[in-house]
């Protein structure tokens, strides 16, 4: 007796869930308020929020909801059809393209801004310049005392974002492996994987042993930014709008927005606005690097 009752409940529940997407996919929503779901990269979340806020004030009939979670999270949501636009601080991977394709759609890529990764240390740390090779060795565990890179006799504590962060993958490929495809260098297992930018900033601020990396937009005055040289003997550059745009600062990247399939009218208008001077001004305000720089 008990099992049939349960089965009936399960079937009823299944029937109920079957209703949901149907009503959501209806041709016309009852109200005239239209919505855009925007999710992904934590690096971009503040930027995306500012864009959304400004754009909503210009278009009162539109609601844009922005959430973070990481580039992978955003693209997964795009593949699952739960968001309209995914933000990513790395380009989409081939298996993610397949995941979106599994729903019969092709992801379309937009470069919405540029970003540089700043290497940060404690303000009391005398080290103020590092080469890419030195940073790679520090993170892989080859170098584990500040003395070896011209600092005090202190152990080095390396801080990184979690592996689901686009910044992590970018740092692994471009810094740890120096952009070499067949380089299999890994983060030392001692590397602390912190779930947020704030966690890294807080630890670097308080701990003179620590080294961390973070998007330029998230660097605060409580930490010290290190100048980076692409190779020994080459000049050292601090990250800034100028050095990123003239490609002299070595750790810079594009920030992407993805739609599943060609953007519809609503999405296209929003993306166009982001590329406008007004949208890119916000990019600059937040410490990222605008695309259409003079």
């Amino acid at each position, binding site marked *: *007796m*008990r099992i049939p*009752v*349960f089965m009936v409940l399960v079937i009823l529940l299944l029937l109920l869930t079957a209703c949901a997407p149907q009503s959501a996919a209806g041709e016309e929503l009852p109200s005239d308020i239209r919505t855009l779901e925007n999710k992904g990269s934590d690096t971009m979340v503040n930027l995306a929020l500012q864009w959304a806020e400004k754009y909503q004030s210009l278009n009162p009939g539109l609601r844009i909801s922005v959430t973070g*979670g*990481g580039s*992978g*999270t955003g693209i*997964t949501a795009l*593949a699952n059809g739960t968001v309209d636009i995914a933000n990513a601080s790395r380009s989409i991977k081939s*298996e*993610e393209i397949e*995941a979106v394709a599994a729903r019969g759609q092709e992801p379309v890529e937009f470069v919405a801004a540029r970003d540089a990764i700043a290497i940060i240390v404690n303000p009391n740390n005398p080290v103020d310049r590092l080469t890419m090779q030195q940073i790679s060795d520090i993170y892989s565990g080859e170098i584990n005392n500040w003395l070896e890179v011209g600092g005090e006799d202190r*152990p080095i*504590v390396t801080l990184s974002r*979690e*592996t*689901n962060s686009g910044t992590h*993958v970018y740092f*692994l490929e471009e810094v740890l492996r120096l952009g070499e495809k067949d380089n299999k260098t*890994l*983060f030392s*297992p*001692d*590397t*602390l*994987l*912190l*779930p947020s930018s704030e*966690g890294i900033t*807080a*630890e670097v601020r*308080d*701990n003179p*042993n*620590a080294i961390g990396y973070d998007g330029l937009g998230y660097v605060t005055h409580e930490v010290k930014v290190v100048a980076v040289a692409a190779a020994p003997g080459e000049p050292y550059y601090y990250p800034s709008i100028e050095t990123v745009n003239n490609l002299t600062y070595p750790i810079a990247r594009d920030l992407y927005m993805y739609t599943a399939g060609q953007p519809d009218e609503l999405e296209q208008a929003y993306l166009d606005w982001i590329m406008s001077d007004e949208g890119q001004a916000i990019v600059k305000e937040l410490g990222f690097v605008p695309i259409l720089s003079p």
Partner: protein
Amino acid sequence: MKVSWREWLEVLITSIIKVSGYSAILFVLVIFLFLMIEGLPTLGEVSLENLFGRRWYPIEDYFGLLPLLGGSLLVTLGAILVAVPFGLGTAIYIAEVAPRWAREVLKPFVEIMAGVPSVVLGFIGILVFVPRLRVLLDLPTGLTGFTGALLLGFLSIPTIVSVAEDALDAVPRSYRDAALALGATQWQTIWRVTLPAARSGVITAVMLGLGRAIGETMAVMMVTGNAPVVPGSPLALFAPLRTMTATIAAEMGEVATGSTHYHVLFFVGIVLFLISLVVNITASAVVFRQRKRAERILS
């Protein structure tokens, strides 16, 4: 007609209550089945050598569970070492020593303590404990297993206190009166009579605290540094480590459904589930044996 309607209602309500009574079993079984379906494919996709490896770096297909298992066990052990003396002390004070007014103030406060969200505790941990522990213990970083153990201890204390306090409270007044009448001091009464009499409840309290500690995620993720290092000695408690729960929480959002990484995370879930199963079975076995012995003595 009316009567039969009421009878019907009664049958209906009885069966609803019955179903909800049995639902606990059903939920556990369904959860276990779900974990198995999602987690067991791991064994086909990842070699055992990899699974028992010392490196966890899933984006490059390193799925060694040893650092996660070691991290979880070490933090939980540390938490128990913090929480048991503290929790039992509080429980004994509230149940046996405290004057009535103190008891009436303390009990609600312990219950409020249980309600502190672990994220809030994590924040306090990052801002207060992490920098101070680094300086105090002269460590390279304050983001260590020990910091996590302190927070977890704090989180399990309310559980331990309230269950142990109930157990101590349930010991008949006559036991204490008899002990005191025989000339035992208050300490002797507590240590030799009340506590042993409440032993099964106290063990349950410790086990529930243990379960709370091993399953906790947020606070641990924020303060342990999450470095997947295999702990080589108990001193690894004072270095960064990574727990199973933090791993699942940090990585579940990113994985593609059905990928190897996804299956391995569920496999970690199975391991966690089995550990808490063992803890619970041990606890109830201990309680059961104790009860049998008590029955033997009484008969």
